[in-house]
């Protein structure tokens, strides 16, 4: 487990012990890992970093509503097949006529040459070493696709009717992520190890910011994290994740900020809050000063 944690850290990912344990088990038991958490806490990043650490290729499948077999698993290259038939007819007229010739043509048509391999098939039947397969945002896909994943994830094999069954020689490392916009079916979760990634603590977030934006003055980095942590306590529709904090830190660095000036904060608050309702709530000038200034003052008080 320390090895996993260390390897992730070398790649610039700060993982808590429980996540490291879950990843270790995923590797040891060859089971998919189901990561759930609020947006922007680094779920997708786990897969990327893991691929780097294991020196395996990363195959990513982004889910969306209506995703189907053709775009996720495989598709026949029809134009090429049609062309092949035409060519066969043109150049080997008699060869195609007989019973044997036709069969041979069929075999030709449904061979690997005409198969377009989409992410899932590429993961099961890779050209190189077994890859890390990232199935991103499963909650966006619909139930049909979930059921389809079930079959794939339990056996790591796919049956292509025209060709036969393809089985993974070496099981890929599978990471599924979900933003929990809807509950994913229990049957899918049962086949996976589950880990919930929470918003990070102040110390961890600071470590991440310092690691990813190294040129930011340490004092400012601390302020940035404090501000983000405070912001998460507000009743926002979408709380800022670490991704947003990093985004903000980069913006502040680019603007050459030395400290959190209220004016500057108001102008860059869009990095943290992506909804108009939330922005309005934080910057509304009702009675007294706007909400974000109060947070800034609180931080000032803390650091004194």
């Amino acid at each position, binding site marked *: 487990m320390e090895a996993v944690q260390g390897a992730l850290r070398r790649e610039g990912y700060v993982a808590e*012990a429980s996540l490291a344990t879950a990843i*270790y*088990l995923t590797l040891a038991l060859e089971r998919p890992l189901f990561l759930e958490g609020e947006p922007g806490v680094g779920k997708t990043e786990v897969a990327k970093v893991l691929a780097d650490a294991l020196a395996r290729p990363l195959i990513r499948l982004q889910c969306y509503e209506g995703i189907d077999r*053709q775009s996720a698993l495989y598709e026949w290259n029809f134009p090429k097949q049609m062309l092949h038939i035409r060519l066969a007819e043109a150049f080997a007229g008699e060869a195609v006529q007989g019973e044997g010739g*036709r069969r041979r043509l069929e075999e030709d048509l449904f061979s690997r040459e005409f198969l377009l391999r989409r992410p899932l098939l590429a993961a099961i039947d890779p050209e190189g070493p077994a890859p890390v397969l990232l199935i991103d945002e499963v909650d966006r896909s619909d139930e049909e696709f979930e059921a389809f994943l079930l079959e794939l994830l339990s056996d790591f094999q796919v049956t292509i009717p025209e060709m036969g069954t393809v089985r993974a020689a070496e099981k890929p490392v599978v990471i599924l992520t979900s933003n929990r916009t809807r509950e994913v079916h*229990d049957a899918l979760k049962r086949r996976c*190890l*589950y880990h919930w990634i929470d918003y990070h603590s102040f110390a961890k977030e600071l470590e991440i910011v310092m690691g990813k934006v190294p040129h930011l003055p340490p004092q400012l980095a601390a302020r940035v994290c404090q501000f983000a942590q405070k912001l998460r306590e507000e009743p926002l529709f979408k709380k800022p994740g670490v991704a947003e904090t990093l985004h903000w830190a980069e913006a502040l660095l680019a603007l050459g900020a030395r400290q959190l000036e209220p004016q500057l904060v108001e102008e860059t608050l869009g990095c943290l809050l992506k909804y108009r309702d939330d922005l309005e709530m934080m910057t509304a000038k009702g009675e007294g000063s706007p909400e974000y200034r109060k947070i800034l003052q609180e931080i000032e008080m803390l650091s004194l």
Partner: protein
Amino acid sequence: MNEKGEPEAQVLVSNLLAFFRGLRRMGFQVGRSEFFTALEALRVLPLEEEGPVREGLRAVVARSPFQVRLFNVAWRQYGYLLVGIRAPGLASQTLLASTARLRARWKGMPRVVWMGGGKGEAGPGEEGLLTIRGGQSPSESLKGGGWSPLTRQEREEMEAMALQPLWRRSRRRKTHPKGDEWDPSATLRRSLQKGEAWELARKGRIQRKERTVWICDVSGSMEPYSRMVLRFLHTLHRRKIPLEAFVVSTRLTRITPALKEGDADRALGEAVGAAPDWSGGTRLARGLKALRLEWGHRVLRGAGVVLVTDGLEGEDPSGLREEAARLRRWARWVVWLNPASAGPGYRPLARGPASLQKAVDGVWPAHNWEALVSAWEKMQTMVAGSL
């Protein structure tokens, strides 16, 4: 080591079995396959360290953030238990198991209360006791509204209702004889059977059931209608029409789990019992806000919202309109079923209804069963026509 190895393994397995039994009674869905996965996990985990073992087992067993928390407490308690009493067979008689039994007696989600240690201060190694409370807490059983059994006529009305789901054309395509697009894959597949391409296969959009989110005002002024609306919801649910149901009076309560009960009387009794504020005041805007913040990401996307209310808001009416407008941005559509609008001379003059009317896609009466059914049919037309 070798001699000791055997019994140790046995103790481990029986401990794990007892622990799983406890978890099962607490509502975890753990079966044989989880058990074997857990054993496999234990084989590769360092058994002398508590942390990794706990986190590893948790990854196998838990399936939601709530279960993650529940597991942590159960684990701690089981740990105390094992230190105190050696024989694992006793585990079924313990607090963990008995609280779980209590849970089974009182239906509904267990409420976990950590005793000892202030909120947030208790570290992972701190004292923690798990008690599970079922049903309502005494302070909330305000009116005890209760549910009188359905009359024969009501039952007949519910059974006679033949409703279709709200069909929406999905973006997903499938081979279909009347499709509007050429399906090359199917064409070629068929041509293989016949040796030549006889027909062009087509594909078209499939139909999907639209999910609706019902937000029912059950405040005092809605009293005469709430019962009917609940019956309607239960009937929809029995017809396998996907829906989420919330009731709102002074607070927001999700009653979807209650509707799952097959028997209408029991389901609706439970729904009424789940909302402590039944027939209370109206804080609709606040309820909608709670829905948006707590459930918005999960239930609103891709669903239609049905507001059932008379629109008489106890608090600031402009807040109601704002919240409805926000819902409108998240959901596919928002309609308002207004029982009060049945009278011929009704006009939304009070500020609440007037402002709400501007923020929704449709306002239809819902004063009796026929009105509800016809409103549902209007929704069908609306959904079928969109996209």
